[in-house]
């Protein structure tokens, strides 16, 4: 339902023609769509408001000068802004102190225990000696659960014996780590509600006692609007140092990432992507922003086009069109630009919803044949296509291994393109027209 954000944006900008700058009316309409997309992704409504205001500031009056449609241009501003908010300050775990202490905190059922096991395995693989410590004395069998997890990842487990006080457990574990030379202590605390004053106080006491170098807030990617309230309370009370987003292997859009990030303003250090202990990934702000917007990899496509296209060549082509001098020679040059971007199928696969387009729909061969036909023409023929008469067609067909019909078809397409371009170039700045020239002509997709 939301994968067509780009389509919606295209519709919004359809009426924007021949303007040199993005205008406010269009941006407001685009932002309405973006607002809905963000809300449906569970970004907190206040965060959405701030965000759309920022995007608006950036977008209004921005020159229409990139290689893309205004819709794509605004999408790109949105994506960049989102990505900037989500990431930027990526850092690994801060493991300071001997031992270094990591404290796992969060609401009930967010995934602290499983993540503790994953982290233990992660630091172990980097040559550290972790100790897993159960501080959840409340939930039935929580201690058994961590013991099994520790056993599975082959990491030592702190046996609490008769001890039933999380504060004592943390202290004793620290002492044991010192004598037995464990360099990383991971405290798995009980899930709790942020409004449970007594239990929040317990966490503060543990923190003051053991001085953890990391306090990781573990948040479920499926969380809704409440993410802001809980994250804020945990952060206010404890000073969270990082965020772990769990259950990202689900299909939630994960707007909670942005909500939590906006209140905690600490890096999202890891994401959980499965139930296996190796299913812990570093956080990719670019992927996350696209996921939140629900728009597939269309932006990678934009970027690819952006980097591969020769800007000077594009400007030259635009000028030719503007002067109504677009020839087969120019078409050939445009084809070469398209080919530089790699196989069309790989480009198309980045378009959301492209699963529907089968390999056969993209006729790579047709492009090669067009190229062959153009190559078999003389330079003069390409510059003055009206020269191409019957006998020349036969010669070109032979040289390119095609048929006269195919040459006729190409010439017809060329004339159509030329006509279309002329219409568009009227009332449209040459610069904006250059942008259009760089896009893939629809003829290449059947």
């Amino acid at each position, binding site marked *: 339902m939301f994968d067509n954000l780009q389509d919606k944006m295209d519709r919004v900008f359809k009426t924007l023609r021949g303007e040199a700058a993005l205008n406010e009316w269009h941006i407001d309409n685009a932002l309405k769509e973006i607002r809905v997309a963000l809300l449906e992704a569970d970004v907190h409504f206040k965060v959405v408001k701030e965000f759309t205001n920022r995007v608006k500031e950036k977008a209004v009056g921005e020159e229409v000068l990139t290689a893309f449609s205004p819709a794509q241009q605004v999408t790109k501003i949105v994506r960049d802004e989102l990505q900037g908010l989500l990431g930027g300050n990526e850092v690994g775990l801060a493991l300071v102190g001997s031992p270094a202490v990591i404290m796992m905190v969060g609401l009930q*059922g967010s995934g602290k225990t499983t993540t503790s096991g994953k982290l233990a395995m992660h630091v172990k693989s980097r040559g550290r000696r972790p100790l897993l410590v159960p501080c959840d004395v409340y939930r039935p069998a929580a201690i058994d659960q961590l013991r099994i997890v520790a056993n599975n990842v082959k990491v030592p487990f702190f046996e609490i014996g008769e001890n039933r006080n999380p504060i004592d457990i943390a202290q004793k574990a620290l002492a044991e780590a010192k004598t037995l030379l464990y360099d990383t202590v991971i405290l798995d605390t009980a899930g709790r509600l942020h409004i449970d004053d007594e239990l929040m106080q317990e966490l503060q006491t543990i923190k003051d006692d053991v001085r953890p170098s990391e306090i990781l807030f573990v948040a479920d990617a499926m969380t*809704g609007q*409440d993410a802001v309230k809980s994250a804020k309370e945990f952060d206010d009370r404890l000073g969270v140092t990082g965020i772990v987003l769990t259950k990202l292997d*689900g299909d939630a859009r994960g707007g909670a990432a942005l909500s939590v990030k906006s209140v905690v303003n600490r890096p999202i250090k890891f994401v959980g992507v499965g139930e296996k202990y190796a299913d812990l990934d570093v956080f990719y702000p670019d992927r996350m922003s696209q996921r939140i917007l629900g728009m597939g990899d269309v932006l990678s496509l934009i970027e690819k086009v952006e980097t591969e296209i020769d800007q000077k060549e594009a400007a030259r082509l635009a000028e030719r069109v503007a002067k109504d001098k677009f020839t087969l020679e120019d078409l050939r040059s445009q084809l070469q630009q398209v080919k530089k971007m790699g196989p069309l199928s790989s480009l198309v696969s980045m378009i959301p919803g492209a699963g529907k387009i089968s390999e056969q729909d993209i006729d790579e061969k047709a492009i090669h044949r067009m190229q062959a036909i153009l190559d078999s023409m003389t330079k003069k023929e390409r510059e003055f296509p009206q020269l191409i008469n019957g006998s020349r067609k036969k010669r070109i067909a032979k040289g390119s291994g095609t048929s006269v019909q195919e040459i006729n078809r190409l010439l017809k397409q060329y004339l159509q393109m030329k006509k279309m371009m002329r219409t568009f170039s009227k009332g449209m700045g040459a610069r904006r027209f250059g942008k259009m020239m760089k896009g893939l002509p629809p003829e290449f997709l059947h």
Partner: protein
Amino acid sequence: MTEPKKSFFDKLKRGLFMTHTEIIEKMKESLTPDLPIDQSAIDRLEEGLLGADVGAELTMSLVGRLEQRVRDERITNMERLTQVIREETRALIPQRKASTIEIDRAQPFVILVVGVNGTGKTTTIAKLAARWKNEGKSVILGAADTFRAAAIEQLQMWADRVGVALVKHKAGSDPAAVAHDAVAAAKSRNSDVVIIDTAGRLHNKSHLMQELSKIHRVIDKELPGAPHETLLVIDGTTGQNGVSQAAAFLEAAKVTGMIVTKLDGTAKGGVILSIMRQFDIPVKFVGVGEGADDLIPFDPQDYVDTLFA
């Protein structure tokens, strides 16, 4: 509804009740009594709905209806406005009244409990067991979460605490076999209720959803017509993904009812409005804490009232 109306409000005072006061307070801030309702009042209402996880689509359609009626009916006061919001929201929900689990419909009455990871399935099962045990029913639990570390131990501890029987196999064994044995045991022991716990699973993992369908089938084979209820446990802090969860579990396990947990926090669970509307699955109970008695029957009218008193 089995419990006095008051207790619903009492129990939810800390959580849901805040919704009503918050929304109303916000609206009062922006209203002058007897002056026409202005845009800012409606904006505040919209934020209240969004903040309660009602979702953009539903919120916008509700707000649209509201604006329409404010115009058409020339609504000028707060009282009338909240009444109208209530009506409109109620009209969205197909469920009219509290929907209980009628365990007397069959014996043994088999309940399968499903949901994504960490929503509160196991705890909810303990709460349900305690409830029926207190009514003098004999209850058997089936530990068909054989996957998560110490899931069986967790349910065992609850069974001991509540004082009900448990059927379990070894960790890692076939969950369908556990479900089968739990039903068979209930039949031979003449038990009243069997409640089967399952491993939390993300609804987009087809092999895990197929496993659930298999458990469902095996139960039906052992006792035709069972499970008599399949309960989807939804975490009250869940956002719009709840809709996709409901769709998938409905398809794989023929969900017949929902339980919304963790409403003792600050989350409002508004996504259930969309779920109820789209799939017509009734909410049976609400979880409001970690203790065995922190479970209260859900009443849709009261729920709406608490949202917009």
